[in-house]
């Protein structure tokens, strides 16, 4: 009986996966990556060339100059306190790298991948995921195929579940392919080395002070592995939210707009809402999980990895409940 049910589910997931591939959504995602990553890599290479003119291959002088420049901005009254905190943290971390004679930005494809995905985790990757998630239910409705789907002798929640599983599988595919594409392309620019290069993690932030007691170095491949895991979790949550919106809103365009607005609002809020502390319960300011790994301060005081995970999980859980309740109860009219 269980096996029968599983087979049933499997064939539904299979059906959804094939639909997803036939609709070429995933190809679009890959195409976007293939076009954008070279652009970023090229820009980064140009920047690195400029720096090399000033500092040669001497990263220590470059890091020391960065420390001095940041120290200078601390003295200025025109710099907001919030920025000063960020810079103080940055200074302490850079000093730590210098003390241990480790280049914080060792050039190479692996480092580029790490930095690129750190920056991509709050907006770019969620955007790609939305691209496939936003219309997974609503498109069936727009196209009228939902009736075909629901007239089959399968219970509604199973239909929805199969769609959800498919979506989550594609989230994994997107995250993994982002890493692979990014590495392969940036390697052309910076070389394919750097997997064993040490990266420091475990900076504990208390206000503007950095507690170094828990800092330890991990090889860069391990860092990428952890980073991918965190980005994947963010992706899953974003996918589930997009999924709910897709159930609730009939029009695909509208559901994309809603999710996009939420994500962009999160990015803006992260930059300016530090004094509005209740904003930390919004899912969109909690998407920067990789910050906790890199030791970059969270947008709002009092946030830590545990907190963000709970907030994200709660939002995802509520979205799931809403999605299933609405989908199983609602009438299909058109």
């Amino acid at each position, binding site marked *: 009986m269980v096996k029968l049910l599983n087979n049933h589910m499997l064939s539904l997931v299979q059906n959804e996966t094939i639909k997803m591939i036939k609709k070429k959504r995933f190809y679009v995602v890959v195409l976007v990556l293939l076009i954008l990553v070279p652009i970023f890599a090229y820009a980064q290479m140009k920047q690195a060339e400029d720096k090399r003119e000033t500092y040669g291959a001497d990263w*220590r002088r470059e890091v*020391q100059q960065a420390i001095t420049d940041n*120290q*200078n901005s601390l003295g200025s009254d025109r710099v907001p306190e919030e920025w000063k905190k960020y810079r103080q943290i940055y200074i302490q971390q850079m000093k730590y790298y210098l*003390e241990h004679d480790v280049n914080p930005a060792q050039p190479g494809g692996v480092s580029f991948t790490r930095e690129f995905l750190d920056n991509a985790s709050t907006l770019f990757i969620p955007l790609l995921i939305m691209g496939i998630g936003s219309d997974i239910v609503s498109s069936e409705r727009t196209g009228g195929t939902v009736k075909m789907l629901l007239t089959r002798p399968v219970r509604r929640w199973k239909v929805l579940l199969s769609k959800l599983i498919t979506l989550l599988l594609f989230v994994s595919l997107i995250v993994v392919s982002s890493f692979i594409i990014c590495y392969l392309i940036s390697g052309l620019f910076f070389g394919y080395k750097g997997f064993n290069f040490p990266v420091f993690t*475990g900076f504990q932030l208390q206000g503007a002070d950095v507690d170094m007691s828990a*800092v330890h170095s991990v090889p860069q491949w391990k860092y990428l592995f952890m980073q991918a895991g965190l980005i994947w979790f963010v992706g899953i949550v974003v996918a589930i939210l997009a999924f709910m919106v897709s159930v609730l809103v009939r029009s695909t365009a509208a559901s994309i707009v809603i999710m996009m607005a939420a994500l962009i609002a999160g990015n803006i809020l992260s930059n300016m809402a530090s004094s509005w502390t209740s904003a930390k319960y919004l899912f969109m300011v909690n998407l920067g999980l990789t910050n906790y790994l890199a030791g970059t301060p969270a947008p709002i005081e009092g946030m830590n990895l545990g907190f963000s995970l709970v907030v994200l999980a709660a939002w995802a859980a509520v979205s799931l409940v809403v999605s299933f309740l609405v989908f199983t109860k609602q009438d299909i009219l058109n």
Partner: protein
Amino acid sequence: MNTTSRIWRAAGLISAVSTLLLLCGFIYAVRDVIYPVTSEPNGAGSPGDHSLNVPLQVSAMDVTAIGDSLAKGTGDDTGKGFAKRTVEILKKQGTESKLVNNLGINGLTTKKLLPMLDEPGVQYALKQAGMIMLSIGANDLFEGGEPLQTRTELPSEAELNAKVKSATENLSEILAKLHDINPQARIVYISLYNPFSDMKELKNAGDKAVAQWNSIAAETMSSIDGGLVVPTFDLFTLQAGRYLSGDHFHPNGTGYQAIAERIVQGIGVQE
């Protein structure tokens, strides 16, 4: 086997494996952030080794500037300051020269500079230099210019004397440390000027303190091999309006250029 089924098998398998891998990464990351393994970081260099490796080829005209806002070049609209301007003059004369680092920090006092010299990054930049340009002391005496301007009464002579005394002790310690870090480098000290020389009520007290400071600085420098004190006092005595920037404390571009020319004269490069 038809293509649809093959696509499904490939996509299904790859995504299942990816999911599993990412899940492991996620669990590993959460564990690592929340329960960090506190092992001694083993970087590329030996941990705790504060002496970073220095390449051997250091040219005598490679400049590292360290100290206060003057070293940084505050007030210079081009942002160059005397360090960069010195390098430019040298280059124009055909001497190979480059600015290694400019470690000037606004508002730095002798007291704050001392611990900075223990930082490995700072030491590294100093060791790369054939010439270390130091500007320090103005903030010890004038506290960035602000208190003097806002204060209703002038600092008493005794007060300034005490400041000079404690700060010059720091200065000799700084010079000794610099020499210790890089014994080969020429140390160029940019001595102080009185930024208030065109303000009647501040001229006298300031002049005295600066004169006292400069004489002690020159005395201290005399004990250091190849040390050089560059005078700036006379530049600003009568021509404050020409050489000072809008904040009435820092030199402007012309002022920095004049200081840079003095430095070049002092280090004596053949034209």
